């Protein structure tokens, strides 16, 4: 009997095959973080020069922070895109019914299928920024990048639930893609990539407490601020991520089960 690992394997296979057949896309993934950094940098300097930005964001190492946070931001967008977009994309392609025809439980497929893509993207992006990081920071910088990558993977756990929750909403709605694209800037804003969270409106500050990316950003700030980050604050952040992960994934599991039933009832597959 097939299980979730088969779904993961299949999806990984198709992503790799896709990149193999679309090399241009593959290389553009390496360039992406640099474009992103440019944008974040430009936004950051709205405060004035780079020194001031460093001060504002409370970091001592702007280069590493900028690179890391751009990857964090992207990875959290990618996972929402990959998991929530999975249904949309496959519905549009007409592949969704055949995917659902796998003997694996439909809710499991919908949650797991977006994962490989969301993991591949930050890894490739990280590889893309390694040259820049080594240039600025040397080998320690590269090691820190690895640490950030680990935190990103951890941060994906709650984002997975978050994205699945969102996917189940998309599954039952008809007008789909607009919501997806309007969600991304919102996540970026509420996670404190562009601005310190403190300057956001009160309501957004409250919302940011439950946006997992915020904690990943915090963690990567920590990692890029000190030469050897203190364990305690980092651990606290990791706890927060884990709790959010549990909550979101439990919510998602029940939501997606319901969405699945509804979709199979109205005939939207």
């Amino acid at each position: 009997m097939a299980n979730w690992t088969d779904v993961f394997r299949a999806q990984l296979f198709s992503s790799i095959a896709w990149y193999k057949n679309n090399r241009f896309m593959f290389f553009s993934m390496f360039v992406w973080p640099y474009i992103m950094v440019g944008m974040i940098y430009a936004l950051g300097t709205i405060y004035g020069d780079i020194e001031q930005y460093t001060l504002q964001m409370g970091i001592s190492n702007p280069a590493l922070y900028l690179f890391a946070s751009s990857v964090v931001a992207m990875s959290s967008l990618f996972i929402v895109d990959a998991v929530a977009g999975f249904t949309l994309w496959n519905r549009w392609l007409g592949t969704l019914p055949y995917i659902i025809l796998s003997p694996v439980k439909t809710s499991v497929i919908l949650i797991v299928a977006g994962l490989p893509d969301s993991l591949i993207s930050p890894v490739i992006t990280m590889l893309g920024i390694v040259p820049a990081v080594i240039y600025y920071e040397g080998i320690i910088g590269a090691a820190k990048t690895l640490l950030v990558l680990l935190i990103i993977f951890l941060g994906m756990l709650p984002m997975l639930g978050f994205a699945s929750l969102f996917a189940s909403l998309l599954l039952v709605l008809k007008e789909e893609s607009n919501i997806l694209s309007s969600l991304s800037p919102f996540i970026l804003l509420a996670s404190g990539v562009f601005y310190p969270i403190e300057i956001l409106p009160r309501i957004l500050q409250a919302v940011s407490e439950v946006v997992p990316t915020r904690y990943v950003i915090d963690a990567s700030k920590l990692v890029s601020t000190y030469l050897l980050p203190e364990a305690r604050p980092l651990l606290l952040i990791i706890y927060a991520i884990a709790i959010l992960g549990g909550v979101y994934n439990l919510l998602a599991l029940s939501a997606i089960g319901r969405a699945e039933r509804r979709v199979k009832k109205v005939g939207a597959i």
Partner: protein
Amino acid sequence: MNRIKLIRVKLLASAINAERLVKRYITHLRKGIFKREKKIVEALKEVSFDVRYGEIMGLLGPNGAGKTTTVKILSTLLIPDGGRAIVAGYDVLEEPEKVRENIGVTLSVEKGFFWKLTGRENLKYFGMLKGLKGKELDKRVNQLLKELGLEELEASDKLCEEYSLGMKARLALSRALLTDPPVVILDEPTLGLDPPSARTIRTLLIDMAKTRGKGVLVTTHNMFEAELICDRVAIINEGVIVAIGTVPELKRYVSGKVSIEVVAGGLDLGHDPDLSKLGFTRDEVVGTIDTEEGRLRVKILCSPGEEEDMIAEVIRRIGAAGGKVHRVDILEPSLEDVFIALTSKREVGSHGKLD
């Protein structure tokens, strides 16, 4: 697939058993930007039939009859509002995963592949989703690519975006057969295909049922195909099964009748599918096939012995309408005659056209 399990399943039940399936869709008609009107479509009204192992069952019906709805319910993609379906020995509502493990399905053949992957890659992907892996998967994929002629067409390693419809249909069938499932459910697998592709697929379907003992359900609106490959045919119209049986059995519905086909020209009929301008009544004319460009092909059912009078009458009426009769044939009733006789009885005004 476990042989013993397969045999047990075969002894215990038919491949597919659908009992009084009911499905209603709620649609919203858009009336302006904000106004929407709810409308309930009764897609299936207590549909029952079964498919045995080793046979090809055809579900024959015009567009909108409920064929795809039936297929989706049987393959667990759609939850019925009433009734019960057992597929490969499992209830579609209670053990959908088990059902999916034991079926191969194609829906519309032109969609449903990753364009940027090759045919082989597509098959491997869907095979993995079914739990196949490693050498076994590669072997199976190669075998199917050969069997369906994709290898011969040099299409196996082409991107799917470059596939013709025929190639897509072949690939779709390969995907359905990846796990060598005991039950195969195909929704219009030869729709719009080039003759060689259609032939390859039909030959394979017959082989599936006859040599490999699978239960095959094929939907189609192609009479010719139904007559050619199906052991039994269920005729569905507007969500109701109107007849079920072998092709000879079905032909008994119009037994004792002869079918006259008349081809005429030079007529100005406009859009008049019931041919009222020619003074026919619905009961006499069972099939109008082609009223374009003043050309008329019409089929009339009548009792033996009456055919000469009927032919004379038709020639007279066509002459009176300013047309000219090109040809008259007396034919054995075909499945099409059965279909039209059965479905036009249900509702006057449906033109009995199958497209």
